[in-house]
């Protein structure tokens, strides 16, 4: 299942200027694209962020990141870590809430 093969890398970085780069992601769609764009534009260091899927039959997504000075890759990485953190946090909280719901309902039944 290792899709990160040199001939078909998961991520490619295009752009010589570190402050404005395009990240080419393979095998990702709007699920991650829009979430990632959202986290990036929520970062005040990002000047511009947008994503596109140039053609529906190619599994390629471009995420463009332009910054006010920090390296784009750094902010891109931070966005991924934040998104991951959010998902994990929502998961933990959801688990707790479901648990307490089930506990409550078993009590009322008994």
């Amino acid at each position: 299942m290792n899709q990160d093969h040199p001939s078909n890398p998961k991520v490619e970085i295009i752009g010589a200027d570190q402050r404005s780069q395009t990240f080419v992601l393979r095998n990702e769609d709007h699920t991650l694209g829009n979430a990632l764009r959202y986290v990036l534009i929520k970062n005040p260091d990002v000047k511009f962020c947008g994503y596109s899927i140039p053609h529906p039959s190619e599994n390629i997504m471009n995420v463009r990141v332009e910054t006010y000075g920090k390296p784009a890759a750094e902010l891109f990485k931070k966005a991924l870590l934040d998104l991951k953190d959010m998902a994990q946090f929502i998961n933990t909280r959801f688990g707790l809430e479901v648990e307490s719901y089930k506990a409550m309902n078993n009590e009322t039944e008994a």
Partner: protein
Amino acid sequence: MATNTQLPPHIEKMRSRVGVGFKKVHNPVGVYGARTFESLGYDNSLNMDDFKNNLEIQVSFCDPDRVVFDVVHVDAPIANAIRRILLVEVPSIAVETVYVHSNNSIMHDEMLAHRLGLIPLRIDPRSFTVWKKGDEVTTQNTVKFSLKVRCEMNKSAPRDDEAPPDVLYKGHKVYSGDMKYVPMPGQSFAVPPAPVHDDIVLAKLGPGQDIHIEMNATKNIGKEHAKWSPVSTASYRLLPEVTITKEARGQLAMGLKNLCPANVFDIEDDHAVVRRPRDCTMCRECIRETPFSDHVELTRKRDHFIFDVESTGVMPADSLVTQALNVLVEKCDMVLEGLDTAIKRSSGGDSDVDFTAAD
């Protein structure tokens, strides 16, 4: 960035609410840019500590088939990612390969195979690996089932040609419950694999007809084929808000209460109050005509999502949500890994020019 001040009320409303007008929806698109309100001294950026402090989740219904819960202070792209992953990226197990030994029913082989594929199977896919065409069939990636049925005349049936075929024949209907799990050597389950429902009619047979099929069920995701989608629906809606902008009394209040098909309003001390805003279907009846439209305003809260996830029965619905969030984490991890390799690759190459100093 500037410390947070409150936005002016009309802008705050644009930011945090979706307006539902009679003829159009106002501000449907969320404004998420960190610096959008910078000139007003409002920080719209994402702060993980604030996110964690503000996040609210409330489960209002949960059973193995369905979970309904509220997620508050989360924005649409995140909620949508969860929904999309639930639909097409949480793995499940479904019949993939069908070997037809005999089928002389009127149902074509390919039609029958298609129907078999769509039957939800109660097997936990987490301990399985994905099988792809050409892979070896092992206990780790396949669950085998067989279906062997035959229809005969019912000798004890009354001699009446008008009687329904269920009475005249034995084994007239082929049900999903006729599918039998065939253990492979070394394969064992705590709960034997079986279809979620055993009363799905797969085909109908006439006397003398038979079906003998062996099938392999494998693990995959809904993106490959909808039969692997573990949910029947996974959706969210924004929390409806009904506001009484101008006091409505007496006849007017009574009229408003009777006008609403969802029975959102009540009357208290002779004036109308909003009692059950959650029941509002946004039918707009209350803002259709004066005088009521002068008194009521409909909005939706942009960051309050009411999720409704219905499982097909293959796994408990709440566990599907947990798995969906895990898939999102995995996706992030995969891209993070790819990003690291890409950075290493570009810093190792000498052709890259660094313009960091240029301005």
